[in-house]
């Protein structure tokens, strides 16, 4: 399966180009001095300066970051619990319904999820705003965390957990000091995925938000409907840079962490 042919190289190259070209264009044109996409006016940071003066967008970005971090953390905890429940607890009442509910948000159209959550909040009389969006995002993203952590848990060597229990470690402690340290890359990947999904979401945030809780996508969307604005290119470029940086940093940190541990032979403090 490993013989590369010209066709394979071409298809991979074409596919990746297709994926990155529009983004590359967007990034480049954020530095375009001219307003028009078809005219290249030279390199300029004008739009970034415009962006910094746009308080509305900056507020929205800050709102999105806070909602993202909070909902990602909650989703990671809940999603990991759900993954553990599905892989460890063999039979419990309502398991079928549980797994159905866990996997459904993966495919459910967002308009349906968004609408249903909004109606819930209205029916229960909850004021819509920061907390409702956070709760909505948590519900949406926890299933992604579950899928990632679950696939890691399935391949996990159960005899390590059995050895820990055999040596006197109760099940909960075993999970915390043996299993979790060894699956944390999957948990971290789940957090990052949940964070970017939250940062990115337009539909559900639109349904479940309230006054004073405008997220960045909502802000961008309202401006985009009026036409292409170069400041949008600028904010998009910044977001891309942030995500790319975060991905690079986290993968470097994972690698460096592993080499450091190898050199010092340190162990986890129990």
């Amino acid at each position: 399966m490993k013989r590369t042919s010209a066709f394979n190289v071409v298809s991979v190259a074409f596919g990746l180009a297709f994926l990155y070209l529009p983004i590359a264009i967007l990034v480049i044109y954020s530095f375009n001095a001219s307003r028009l996409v078809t005219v290249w006016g030279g390199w300029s940071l004008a739009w970034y300066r415009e962006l910094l003066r746009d308080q509305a967008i900056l507020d929205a970005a800050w709102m999105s970051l806070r909602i993202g971090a909070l909902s990602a953390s909650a989703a990671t905890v809940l999603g990991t619990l759900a993954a553990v429940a599905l892989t460890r607890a063999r039979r419990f009442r309502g398991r079928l319904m549980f797994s159905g509910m866990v996997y459904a948000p993966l495919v459910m159209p967002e308009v349906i999820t968004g609408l249903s959550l909004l109606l819930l909040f209205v029916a229960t009389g909850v004021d819509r705003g920061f907390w409702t969006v956070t709760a909505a995002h948590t519900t949406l993203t926890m299933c992604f965390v579950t899928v990632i952590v679950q696939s890691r848990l399935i391949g996990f060597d159960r005899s390590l957990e059995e050895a820990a229990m055999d040596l006197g470690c109760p099940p909960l402690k075993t999970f915390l000091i043996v299993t979790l340290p060894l699956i944390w890359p999957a948990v971290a990947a789940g957090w990052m995925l949940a964070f970017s999904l939250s940062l990115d979401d337009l539909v559900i945030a639109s349904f479940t938000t309230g006054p004073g809780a405008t997220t960045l996508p909502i802000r961008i969307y309202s401006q985009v409907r009026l036409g292409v604005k170069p400041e949008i290119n600028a904010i998009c470029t910044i977001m891309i840079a942030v995500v790319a940086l975060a991905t690079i940093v986290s993968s470097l940190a994972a690698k460096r962490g592993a080499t450091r541990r190898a050199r010092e032979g340190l162990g986890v403090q129990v």
Partner: protein
Amino acid sequence: MSARGAGKRPGGGRLVVLIPYLWLIAFFLAPFVIVAKISLSQTAMALPPYTPVLDLAAGWAGLKQFAAQLSLDSYALLASDELYLRSYLKSLEIAGVSTVLLLLIGYPLAYGIARSPRGLQPLLVMLVVLPFWTSFLIRVYAWINILQRDGLLNDVLMRLHVIGAPIAWLSTDTAIYIGVVYSYLPFMVLPLYASLEKIDPSLLEAAADLGCPRWKAFWRVTLPLSWPGVAAGALLCFIPITGEFVIPDLLGGSRTLMIGQTLWTEFFSNRDWPVASAIAVALLALLLVPILFYERLQKRAIGETP
């Protein structure tokens, strides 16, 4: 052997299940019940903009009065007005065609990655996934930049003298297809890659040994074995695309209304919550079979009951 190990002790074990379970019941299941109920309600110039409103304090009599006021008016509207029917069909059409396009583009890409040197594969997979981690909105927006009347595509095509005047790429089905394929490609490539990567290379060697030419080995061995990936990728794309809102809204025109847009309009513009709810319920009913099929696939993939 260790797959049948003893589970956690009852006390702690139940809590592990209970916490996410309760959350999901509260924030996933209950909302759907409410949507169903609202779809049976009627619009009202009130806050909330529907009636009847369930008042538990009114007791049993209140409940009976409540039930009596429920109606299927919204569903009747859906069935009678051609607009809704066309939206549903349009959505299914776009989702179906997009899924096929995604397969045509995604399969060679996934296959190419699976056949590249082992060490390179994680990097390639990450490159495919990375755009997905940037904003969905951004990526759709990027296409607006390219496809708009005075955008890049027209500019390039005109300079190459392929066309004489700028073409309106936006506000067409074509633009929607481009946007959908672009945004959902990782959802197709990842499951495909996962199942292609698992295929034992010695199977293809055996086929060659038995006299099978490369293309035939692909058709007879690789393709059938990658079927779980194909099914997973197709469902993972088809189902959400049906309810897509952002892409048709930004890239499509006012003539091509997908059901997601219809729902949004009913809700935000017309403030007709019961009809919007009815649309959602009908959409869910439409997608129920694919969703259940997908769940079965998920369970089979992780080794539970078929």
